[in-house]
């Protein structure tokens, strides 16, 4: 069970949150074509390593959070609010 430190509520059990997937993909602007939207909706890096992702604190403050989490060790490098700019783990760049 992961323990996630919500920037608002403090450290909480994973069960209070809902996972919401890859945070490195960003919704294309309204004038973008289908290819861009296909990439946004379907295509993923799915890294074995550091992953930038969304979590929703459903049974807490109901805020979306961003995490940098390692998909093998589950170490959480950073947590931020939806609008924070997080520093990725060393050597990582977000697309």
């Amino acid at each position: 069970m992961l323990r996630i430190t919500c920037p608002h509520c403090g450290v909480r059990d994973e069960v209070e949150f809902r996972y919401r997937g890859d945070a490195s993909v960003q919704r294309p602007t309204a004038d973008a074509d289908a290819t861009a939207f296909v990439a946004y909706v379907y295509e993923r890096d799915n890294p074995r390593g550091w992953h930038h992702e969304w979590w929703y604190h459903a049974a807490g403050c109901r805020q979306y959070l961003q995490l940098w989490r390692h998909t093998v060790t589950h170490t959480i490098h950073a947590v931020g609010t939806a609008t924070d700019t997080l520093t990725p783990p060393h050597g990582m760049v977000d697309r």
Partner: protein
Amino acid sequence: MSGPRRITTGLLTDASRPVEFSFDGRRVRGLHGDTVASALLADGVRLVGRSFKYHRPRGIVTAGHEEPCALVDIQSADGPAPNRPATIVEIVDGLEVVSQNRWPSLSFDLMAVNGLFAPLFSAGFYYKTFMRPAWAWERIFEPAIRRAAGLGVLDRAERGQQTTQPHTEEPLHDHTDVLIIGAGAAGLAAARRLAGSGVRVMLLERDVVAGGGTLLDPRWAAWRTAALEDIATDARLRVLTRTQVIGAYDHGVFAAVEALPPSAQGGGAAASPRERLRVIRTRRVLLATGANERWIACSGNDRPGVMLAGAALAYLRRYGVAVAERPVLFANNDWAYESAVALHEAGVRIAAIIDPRPASAAAARATAVGITVHHGAMVTAIEGRREVRTVQVARSDGQALTTIQTDGVLLSGGHQPESALATQAGGSLQWREDLAAFAAVLPDRLGATAGAVAGSFGLATAARDGEATAARIAAALASTRTPDTRARSGTSPTDAPPADPETSPLLALWEVPGRGKAFVDLQHDVTVEDIRQAHREGYTHIEHAKRYSTHGMATDQGRIGGLLGAAVLAAARGQTLPEVGLPTPRPYIHPTTFGALAGGEVGEHLRPVRKFPAHASHVALDATFVPAGLWLRPLVYSQTTGWEPVLRESRAVREAVGVGDASSLGKVDVQGPDAARFLDYIYANRFSTLAVGKARYGIMLREDGCLLDDGTTSRLGERHFLLTTTTANHTAVLEHLEFQSQVVHPEWDVQLTDVTDQWAQFSIAGPRARDLLQRVMPGQDLSNTAVPFMAALPAHIAGVRGRLFRISFSGELAYEVAVPSDRADEVWNALLEAGRPLGVLPYGVDALNTLRIEKGHVTTAELDGNTTAHDLGFERMLKADGDYVGRVLARRPGLTSSTRRQLVGLRPTRKDAKLVAGAILVDPAAPKVNIGDVTSCTPSVLVEGWVGLGLLAGGRGRIGSRLLAVSPLHGESTEVEIITPHWFDPENARVRA
């Protein structure tokens, strides 16, 4: 004293409190504090079980959780609890213990014929035979194999009500700074070091008392008492015994099971043992789990009477029981000598000690007290059938030395640290040549290991290690928090631990060459030959060898024979043990009941129930309820099954008026300067143009272009909307809305609040709906001008402030009223009361379904996550301009093609023909090809016979044609006419009446 073999006073047993239980129906007397195993041993019982494959007679091998052989079923009023190690089950009066895996009886087991075929049943034999004829597997071979396999018994049938009662306590959640696992020398010393330091500590011990190895050495009693006293002075340091850590998880989470002592369980022997799960979050863990003694592979090492040396010591010290009258000790290490010496001192005659080493410090001590030690010797065979009779001893070079008459063989091949938790927590194993064992190490950020698990063998060594490790952890924690000045500086010299005796190194000894079966896994009957055969067949990796031979896969998970099997494999591979390694250890450290994990969430408590605000009124109206997610919704106001009561309710709506409860619809309050813009983005159709006081039907898409949900949304103010969702999609929609608002468009000022629980919502539908409503809203103008179709207004209903909506799902003149949920019963009853002269009936979900099918409205049966706006004929609702979720991908060719399944109405061509929901639509010319489905159907109250809705490939183009609705499941085939789904009142005249 109870039992002929009880020769002295045990630490745990109370001679003044006899306890009587039964074993296979025979009454056995033991003492309070005994385990089933100690009581049986005291009674002279040897044979307690049968092995898995060969049904060989088996006895008691250990004195603890690692027991592979002495598994028994415990009977309780709820049914048997299978596979309990007799070595840890405490006896209570009336306890019924039954042996396993034998028929008809333990001493005469017909399945023991398997032993005759043992040569055939080598590793993986079942992969090589039983293949022909193919049908015979399910009918002959598999049933026979299944009956022969398996140990204990679980009732196949449910036993009445009792089984639905919680067997266990609610799980407890704990938080601590340091979790110490194991209260042996190391764990106690560590806890004592942390006492008073200001950090929160939990010390968990699975044994019935704290002490671990110190319980077996009387010299340590004073130290133990002093340590426990120190620990007790700190209220932030909690000690829990009978509490076993069962798994280590990410982020410092550990799970433990606490068994409540029999005295706390009330029900006596008949009740199921009560236990509770503890979920523990800790900043650091200190693993002090000790070590397990290892088996030696020699011929006949499974005979009842062969036991680990340490277990013999435990039976003596803890329960005052001598496990044999003339035991032999076969050991390769000095620690095991303690068992022989202690038994000797207690008056038991030690037949001999067999030691492969040429000499040792312990051997010298044993010889000094008069025990015979055969140096440079090994036991080559243990003989006897249901019981040990003799052992053959040979010199290390193989030359026969002597035959010894004995009734018990104490084995010790050294110790393997209890390292599973460390590996799971993220630690690693280090090979220690001096111990011929893997010691466990943890990275600092997680904590540390101490004592025997870390390779610090010997009580004093372990205690010192525990103290030093605790000091290190305290320092590490102090660097992340303000240090507490009360921290103790160290143990006072007065209660310094007794010194460890001098020990000589062990000699790694895994297998003694011999002729008979030499087991590495006792429960699963895996022999050294099985391991070698697995190797020969290419199953050379430790994980392959494990799976092919089933070595280490029994209930004890290779606790005493795991390393041994790995050593045999290493020898076959010509490699070292560190190169071969051990299989991955997994939770659970000790097998854990479903009941403990389930906690109180069993039976009807599995999930919370969400009840309608007017639930009590529905009950009073004799409603049958149906689960919808967590909700219970009134299905029909009758306990009789069948269509009659449903159609009566539907008819009331069509002909007079009905009142329905729609309170489970999701309701989301949307407020803010950007609320309208936000809804334009969320919905595929437009909401910014909606006037205040009006409602509009909306469809929202997922970003992939499929429909997510639909519902009506009302504008309550310039900046204020009330959005409704379907019951099923409420949570998903809410999360979607928050995602779009917080993540995709955080620049918009919108506040979303779930108000589902705030409002009860009732629909009043039918030609007389207005009449009814007027009676509970006397002053209100309900005319079409004041409250037109799709109006949404504040109102008082039966004197309660709420909201009035003019919306219709049924196709009739209809309103919905919303009132605060704490006023629900009152308003609901007022509506029914007011409607009585009008012929009102309450109507449930089933009737609503009839009504909406007739009207051609869709629900989750049609909105199955794959449907698009085009499929439902909603393409005109899609905004031509402006961005909205799903806009781009909804236009992909695959989502707009006219060959996709489209919503149609269905009517059997014969009025007496039924429709089946889930029937498949086929063209009679190609009767095996699915071209559509009947998604929902109902007998109609508007027309004669059944009507339905379906999704049909190119459906709109097929209107007027005839197809078959087939249900091979029911052997039915019905000709249907494809009609428009909106055949009833297409102009909405009734709705607007």
